[in-house]
């Protein structure tokens, strides 16, 4: 190797970052395709089937089309914030995935002397990092809504941020119960704590210890990612397209990308916290990430399935549900978990 190259561990890490980034973009593209296909089959249609095999290349065709569209900006918009808002959204969506572990460690078939973990960075406050970055993502939406200087955008932005802030509480309380069980804030340790089985056949996943927590997490996750049946920010009958009404071309694509990457991230967090991350039977250690992908895919499929099955709630129902039912249940769940941990020891 030439001397000017950084050490192989650093190169491997950079490669890992590149792989994770591209996997996220690709999974977002795949999600767009899957959503349209599943929706089509649910509605007894064929869905996209022209570009590539069964339309798998449709998302790429869409992106190319968006690239060639004109970038429009309302005259009264706040130029700087209007330009920054989609970037904040997309950056926050991608950054949150950095702390999620998706496999054991690898030496790349002996190329490296030290194995590197399959995770961009293992910080000891990983759960809080995800939480903090999600809360930063809200700015993208709020600022997009405000800077467009349009009533639909503003209302959409306000709604979506109010929704995200309300549901973030329940989301955090559901996470806190798992953190107490695991006794750690590092996602890698939380996953490793779920290794093994009860009576030889039930995996020790936290979903079995925290069924209520899992339900709260999934519900709040849907609201956090602004998906149906909680997709009020873009309730098209009332708000045209919500906070991204005035966006076009690639800045619109960035919001779109952020939305799908957020879904992938929420599913990955749910997988790590409740479904044992990359742990699973049959596969050797170096293929463990396949289990991770399978679990994330199943949760994503569930989200898509739900979107095309359930009608949208009313906005006041959503707020009432979040504050009057979900939050108290989350608090009780947390108290019960704490009491049980103290009792059993």
């Amino acid at each position: 190797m030439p001397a000017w190259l950084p050490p192989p561990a650093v190169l491997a890490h950079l490669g890992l970052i590149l792989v994770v980034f591209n996997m996220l973009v690709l999974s977002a593209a795949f999600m767009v395709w899957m959503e349209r296909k599943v929706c089509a089959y649910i509605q007894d249609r064929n869905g996209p089937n022209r570009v590539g095999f069964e339309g798998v290349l449709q998302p790429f065709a869409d992106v190319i089309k968006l690239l060639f569209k004109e970038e429009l900006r309302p005259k009264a918009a706040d130029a700087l914030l209007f330009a920054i808002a989609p970037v904040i959204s997309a950056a926050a969506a991608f950054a949150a995935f950095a702390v999620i572990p998706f496999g054991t460690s690898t030496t790349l078939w002996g190329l490296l002397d030290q194995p590197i973990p399959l995770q961009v960075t293992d910080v000891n406050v990983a759960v809080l990092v995800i939480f903090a970055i999600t809360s930063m993502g809200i700015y993208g939406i709020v600022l997009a809504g405000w800077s467009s200087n349009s009533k639909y955008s503003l209302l959409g932005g306000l709604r979506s941020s109010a929704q995200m802030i309300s549901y973030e509480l329940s989301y955090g309380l559901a996470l806190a119960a798992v953190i107490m069980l695991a006794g750690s804030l590092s996602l890698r340790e939380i996953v490793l704590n779920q290794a093994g089985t009860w009576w030889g056949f039930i995996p020790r996943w936290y979903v079995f210890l925290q069924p209520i927590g899992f339900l709260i997490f999934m519900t709040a996750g849907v609201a956090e990612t602004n998906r149906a049946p909680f997709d009020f920010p873009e309730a098209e009958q009332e708000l045209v397209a919500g906070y991204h009404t005035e966006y076009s071309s690639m800045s619109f694509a960035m919001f779109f990308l952020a939305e799908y990457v957020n879904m992938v991230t929420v599913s990955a967090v749910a997988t790590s916290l409740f479904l044992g991350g990359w742990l699973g039977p049959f596969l050797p250690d170096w293929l463990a990430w396949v289990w991770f992908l399978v679990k994330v895919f199943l949760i994503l499929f569930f989200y898509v399935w739900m979107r095309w099955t359930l009608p949208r709630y009313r906005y006041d129902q959503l707020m009432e549900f979040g504050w009057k039912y979900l939050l108290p249940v989350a608090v009780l769940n947390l108290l019960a978990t704490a009491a049980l941990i103290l009792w059993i020891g």
Partner: protein
Amino acid sequence: MFESILFYTLAAFILGFGVLVVTARNTVHCVVFLVANFLCVAMIYVMLGAEFLAIIQVLVYAGGIVVLYLFVVMLVNLKRGPDAAPDRRRQSRVGFVLAAVMLAEISAILVYSAARPASAVAAAAATPLQTVGNTEVVGMLLYTDYLIPFEVASMLLLVAMIGAILLAKKEI
């Protein structure tokens, strides 16, 4: 070397954003600069090895409280002209007094800490945190040594919460 470059760059950014917060004409821009300011402060915490504090800074201040500021600012839509301020001279006089008080406080802290370098805090900071992680240390400190301030702060928040409900609800 690298650390001090990073520190002074961050410090410059923090001061720069701070100045922008008070000078920007548009109130929403002020709030955005405030967020940037908080994020830079969080980076300083990371440099000091206090990850937990850094994340809480982002989560609570930059992510939670300032979003509410932004809500208020966006909803009231402040369109104040440059000459609408009541009396600029009186404002600047108050500002000077406040700045002088702050300066006195900071220099008092500097003098005090220079006189007694080896305080309990410095000794606590010197103990290795890596073994337990600083989340646990912060938690232990909050619930043992600083229990009373912690409880007083939570009482204060409860009072504020009840007050807000009382203001918002016409009849209870």
